[in-house]
């Protein structure tokens, strides 16, 4: 978008599916991103327009989250109304499906346009309208290298305008014993595998079933295993049936939706965080686990390579080697939790994230 005259303190308009008060990885990313933008001295205010979430949400200073409008038409009218009445220097589009609307708003105000790409929504070629809007963006942010590569596959954009700003891990995720949870779950000396992910029938790529299938082999090798699954979803009955068929139902605990304050203990008591997903845009739970001092294992597929840092920070395996990799990691001495946490934060901690967001803002504001 052309014509924006650089100002010291910019006013932002953020179109998001959900952010403050929302659930899931995208809402988390949006919150983290908007907090980092708000922390910038170059930004005066951020008006957030969500489609989902509570009517009133607690947002940081400089951020005003409007009430949500789920219906597309109502949302679009509200977005145009806010755009016309506000000063808007930067439009942040938090999801590809809002790209045409975001482009229109940016055009109306001759504002800079920042597009956010999370994961699977950006992998296939989008509609022509969405693609045209993305190609007009001043900056395209992607959570992983894989998503960046996918965007560059279908978008005719200058590669330097497509930048990776990975997910970040919250300050609360630190190493610890989590003894009370271990006792309350009656875990004793068992080796705990953990997966934190929704169990949606439409998101079977998360890989719960792969772990369930690996457990009999691991047990046969002498590993006394308990598999904890945090998260809810309509695919849970099927997975429970899978466990029964594999005769390991007694080795699985479906924890349901775990509140954030308890999630840290889940990570702490786990011996290995394992999520053999084939469709992660990034996989924030990997870095939450490692920041909590727990080693993580995933498949070297799609965005999961990034939180695992190609095997330098976490562990990567092929699908065929999954059981073998779990066995190897459970048998090996557990890495120093504090050191793992520090290394994770160095790459994905809040400071690194804020720095990248700040650089992205610079890039967007200086775009021709």
């Amino acid at each position: 978008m052309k014509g924006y005259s650089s100002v010291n303190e910019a006013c932002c308009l953020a179109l998001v599916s959900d952010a403050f008060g929302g659930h899931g990885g995208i809402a988390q990313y949006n919150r983290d991103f908007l907090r980092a933008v708000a922390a910038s001295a170059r930004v005066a205010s951020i008006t957030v327009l969500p489609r989902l979430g509570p009517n009133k949400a607690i947002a940081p200073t400089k951020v005003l989250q409007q009430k949500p409008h789920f219906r597309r038409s109502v949302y679009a009218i509200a977005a145009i109304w806010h755009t016309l009445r506000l000063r808007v220097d930067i439009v942040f589009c938090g999801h590809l499906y809002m790209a045409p609307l975001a482009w229109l708003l940016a055009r109306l105000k001759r504002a800079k346009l920042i597009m956010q790409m999370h994961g699977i929504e950006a992998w296939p070629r989008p509609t022509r309208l969405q693609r045209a809007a993305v190609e007009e963006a001043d900056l395209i942010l992607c959570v992983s290298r894989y998503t960046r590569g996918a965007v560059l596959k279908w978008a005719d954009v200058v590669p330097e305008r497509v930048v990776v700003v990975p997910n970040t891990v919250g300050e609360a995720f630190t190493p610890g014993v989590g003894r009370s949870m271990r006792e309350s779950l009656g875990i004793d000396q068992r080796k705990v595998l953990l997966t934190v992910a929704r169990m949606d029938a439409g998101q079977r790529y998360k890989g719960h079933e792969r772990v369930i299938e690996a457990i009999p082999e691991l047990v046969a090798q002498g590993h006394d295993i308990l598999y904890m699954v945090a998260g809810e979803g309509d695919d849970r009955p099927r997975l429970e049936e899978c466990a029964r068929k594999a005769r390991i139902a007694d080795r699985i605990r479906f924890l349901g939706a775990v509140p954030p304050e308890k999630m840290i203990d889940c990570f702490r008591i786990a011996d290995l965080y394992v999520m053999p997903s084939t469709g992660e845009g990034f996989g924030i739970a990997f870095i939450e686990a490692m920041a909590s001092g727990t080693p993580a294992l995933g498949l070297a597929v799609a965005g999961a390579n990034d939180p695992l840092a190609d095997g330098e920070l976490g562990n990567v395996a092929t699908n065929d080697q999954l059981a073998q990799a779990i066995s190897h990691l459970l048998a090996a001495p557990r890495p120093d939790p504090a050191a793992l946490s520090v290394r994770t934060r160095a790459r994905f901690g809040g400071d690194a994230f804020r720095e990248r967001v700040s650089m992205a803002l610079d890039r967007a504001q200086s775009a021709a």
Partner: protein
Amino acid sequence: MCGINGIFAYHSAAGLPKEAELLATREAMRARGPDGEGAWWSADGRCGFGHRRLTIIDLTEAANQPMVSADGRYVVTFNGEIYNYRELRAELAAAGSRFRTTSDTEILLHLYARDGAAMVHRLRGMYAFAIWDDAQRQLFLARDPYGIKPLYTANDGWTFRFASQVKALLAGGQVSRDPEPAGIVGFHLCGSVPEPFTLYREIRALPAGHTQIIDVAGPHEPKAFASLAATLAEGARHAAPPSELAGRIRAGVLDSVRAHLVADVEVGHFLSAGIDSGAVLGVMRDAGQKRIRAITLGFDEFRNTTDDEVPLATEVAAHYGAEHIVRWVNKREFEEDLPAIFEAMDQPSIDGINTWFVAKAAKEAGLKVALSGLGGDELFAGYPSFADLPRWRRRFRIIAAIPGFGILCGTSIGALAPGLARQQPKALGFLRYAKDWAGLYLLRRGLFLPEELHKILEADVVSEGLRRLKPLKHVRNSVSPDPGSDVGRVCALESANYLRNQLLRDADWAGMAHGVEIRVPLVDHALLQGLSQSMPTIRPGAGKNALAASPVRPLPNDIAARAKTGFGVPVGEWIQSATVQRTSQVPISKGVVSRNWSRTVLHACAA
């Protein structure tokens, strides 16, 4: 001339680059620099440079690269030659710089420390280099205005890599091989892959005449510092009278050839029977070079025929007192070398075979450096395109501008004269593309036309490739700003497309495969600047005549009057028999031979 490479893990999430990758990329360019190798890492291990050296200026080990500044702040890895390095050295020394070597490489360190990115405006030469600024944590890349020296980059979102060759980047093992449809389509349209595209989506050329900064925020968009069209446009605004043409050519070519003779090793010459190489040879003598070894290719198939360039080249060599080396090549040697040719060919090209053999001959003669007359046709209006394109434009631009008329004509020719369509496939698209300079150029130089691609490529590749490449816009950019005259426009079109993407690239891979630096004094931005004011007064034919007359002892008349021979016919016949798609023994046109050959080349390069 050398091979350079580097890795910079700019993103805080990226791990440290591996030394094995740096060395694998570097060693894939061993042929570019057989005389030495070096590697350097920043203290934090996040940035590394590699270098393979061909020693030409300052033969001592002190001039090895990567070279670190005395204070340790700057590090350079450099491929090419800075021809005005002695002047720059004197200037920098006068201002207090202290030098440890007599190399041109060290100049870059001092100049960057003083002028930053603006240093490129002071350089005369062919170059591609990277400078690391340890204080700023910043990488600076630059490539010469004509794009004589290659520089390819790859950015995966965390880590930035660069190298002199596409294949070297791939050899490192960390760069994606996902195909780039624009590169594939571009190759089929042009016979070479148009920069900045390559066959791979993640790998791009740093465009000619551009610099690029890479810092902790990642790579910034490349910035142009020179443009051939802009140089020509500027010259046209201050056009010189026709009477000055001969004098400007004489003075400019002498100045350029003299600059291109700067070396601490012997500089040889590639001599054909054409005006360009003959004139360069004469001017080499004028510039004071005493011993000149000139190499000419002879083809067995041409012995004792009018196509044989050897007798005339021999006459020119004798005329200027050069030692003449004739290297005979036959079909058998071509077939034997073909696997090595494909191996050395960094990106697919339908040309370059002649350059391969002449560089091979130079190596056999013990030469490391040779001057070539490449670029003379572009600068002195030697190609038929200088007459054809303006004529076609005058005749057809109005009728071609009628909406739908071009398509209708093409369809009619295809239906009524299928034989013509087979023999002259571009005839179908003539009126469709004749409405502007870019379209005319595509017709003149194009291998296939865009609407033919669906016959040889998958529909998705064609649609995505054309969408990303935008061939007409791509070509149009090379005449923006308007060079101000017909000759200037065709000069810009030929120089920024055919010369840059094919001839110069061929000279690079074919020369480097034998460790021979091919210098091109007629491809020199300073020379172009000097002649730009006279460009509107150059007429097709007259420019070459002026070039032939530029040595103190002009070229013999029979050489100056000889029509341009163009592509070596035996090579055309050889490649015809080597194509994978030869289906008929019926003689086919040169254009169709090239089309078939392109399929063979792409097949070999993609393997």
